[in-house]
């Protein structure tokens, strides 16, 4: 006999609302239906009522984890409409903050995944590591959530003490190699909870158009930092970790390896950072009529902004945001099919969902 279990909108594992109706035969999931929209704030519509300064502050609030990525993508699009190119130092600072954000997002996710596996010691370890990254972000920007780093034509703040950031990178890298990666790769608990669970095949990943670590864990080697470099990524050397298994363990491994790559990118950006201006100046911006688009590789995958402007206007005519979770979340339905009901919270968490981004 089949029965339906509604999971959510108060999620048992993640502190954001969405709902999954699971159809089960015994303990096995045979179908699932997703319901989102509990966080729908109409931000895109609201953006049309904000001027070019206010809209940056507004879009920074689309997401509480990758807030910097949203302003980076928006500012890059608006730079396309104003014809401004940020100075080299600003591009490097954008890379540093984007990678710090990736670090804290991935470490946060590793902690939550550990907690869902019943591995609370690892949860505490990961959150202690994340605090180190958050401290650096706070030292740079004065903020822990919305850093207000990006502006049209550059960045608002400099990174004066690059040595302090490098010190944190070294400490994080050492701890990842000493505890987090060995435990996640060799522990029986991690293996039994993650291996061959919530598999998304390469074919399905391509068909659904999933992005970021979810795609890379299913053997799809896409990363905009490599395929369509922005900011100063063209000058960075790094690998794009790809796993073939498509299960929760593969998603875990991709993110763990990406933490190491982020550390490498940070080291390069901080040591090679050129001196110079932080932005193009304080003159009034002249927007041309038209649409500009920008894409950035956020911690969860590709973010795309389409911004439309009418010459002479202070407000955008349209701001459209395509977030990574919006395209990754439909994959959950395919990941939970045939899986045990008890594994579904971890499977859902394995895409590192952001409902706030998804609903906007």
């Amino acid at each position, binding site marked *: 006999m089949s029965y339906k279990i509604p999971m959510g909108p108060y999620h048992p594992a993640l502190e954001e609302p969405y709902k999954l109706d699971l159809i089960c035969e015994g303990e096995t999931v045979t179908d699932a239906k997703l319901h989102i929209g509990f966080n729908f704030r*109409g931000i895109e519509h609201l953006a049309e009522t904000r001027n070019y300064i206010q809209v940056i502050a507004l879009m920074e609030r689309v997401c509480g984890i990758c807030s910097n990525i949203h302003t980076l993508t928006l500012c890059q*699009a608006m730079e396309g409409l104003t014809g401004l190119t940020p100075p080299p130092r600003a591009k490097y600072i954008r890379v540093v903050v984007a990678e710090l954000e990736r670090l804290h997002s991935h470490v946060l996710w590793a902690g939550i995944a550990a907690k869902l596996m019943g591995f609370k010691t690892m949860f505490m370890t990961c959150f202690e590591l994340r605090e180190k990254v958050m401290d650096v972000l706070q030292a740079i920007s004065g903020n822990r959530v919305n850093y207000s780093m990006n502006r049209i034509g550059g960045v608002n703040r400099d990174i004066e003490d690059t040595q302090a950031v490098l010190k944190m990178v070294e400490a994080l890298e050492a701890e990842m190699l000493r505890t987090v990666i060995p435990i996640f790769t060799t522990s029986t608990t991690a293996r039994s909870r993650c291996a061959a669970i919530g598999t998304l095949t390469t074919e399905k990943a391509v*068909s659904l*158009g999933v992005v970021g670590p979810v795609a890379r864990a299913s053997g799809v080697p896409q990363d905009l930092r490599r*395929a369509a470099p922005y900011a100063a990524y063209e000058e960075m050397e790094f690998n794009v970790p790809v796993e073939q298994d498509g299960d929760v363990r593969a998603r875990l491994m991709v993110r763990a390896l990406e933490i190491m790559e982020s550390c490498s990118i940070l080291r390069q950006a901080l040591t090679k950072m050129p001196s110079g201006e932080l932005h193009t100046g304080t003159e009034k911006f002249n927007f041309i009529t038209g649409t*500009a*688009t*920008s894409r950035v590789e956020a911690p969860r995958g590709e973010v795309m902004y389409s911004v439309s402007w009418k010459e002479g206007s202070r407000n955008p005519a349209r701001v*459209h945001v395509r977030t990574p979770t919006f*395209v990754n979340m439909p994959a959950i339905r395919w990941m939970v099919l045939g899986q045990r009901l008890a594994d579904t919270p971890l499977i859902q968490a394995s895409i590192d969902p952001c409902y706030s981004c998804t609903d906007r």
Partner: protein
Amino acid sequence: MTVLDTIPEKLGSEELWVDKGGVQWLNPGAMTVRELAKAMNALHARFITITAYQLPKDEGLRLEYHWDLDGQLLGFPFKLEGNKIESIFDLCEAVDWIERETHEGFSVEFTGREYEPLLLREGDTTGVNLREEKK
């Protein structure tokens, strides 16, 4: 000749690509969105999104379809007659949520498919992103 240069001919279009705002744009001309989706599938392009624009005054709506081809963002604008356009959901399953969101935000009817509420709830009025409230 790049892969990009060969696409207009494959699509049966005499238009040329226009590089603007970070996107390679191609006017689809007489091509339908379903023909375009089939052509993009044949090229193994990755569907990205649909962006809906409400045009000034009573000029209606424009939908911009985006695909990624080896890191290059491609854009195809479609001006809507009324508020209807064919769905490509059966050709490209990645389009499901964005067609539903565009339906709810701009009251666009994607013909040939069924909807379930996405961001709104059953019975809610669609068109929440339109400038004027839908009567």
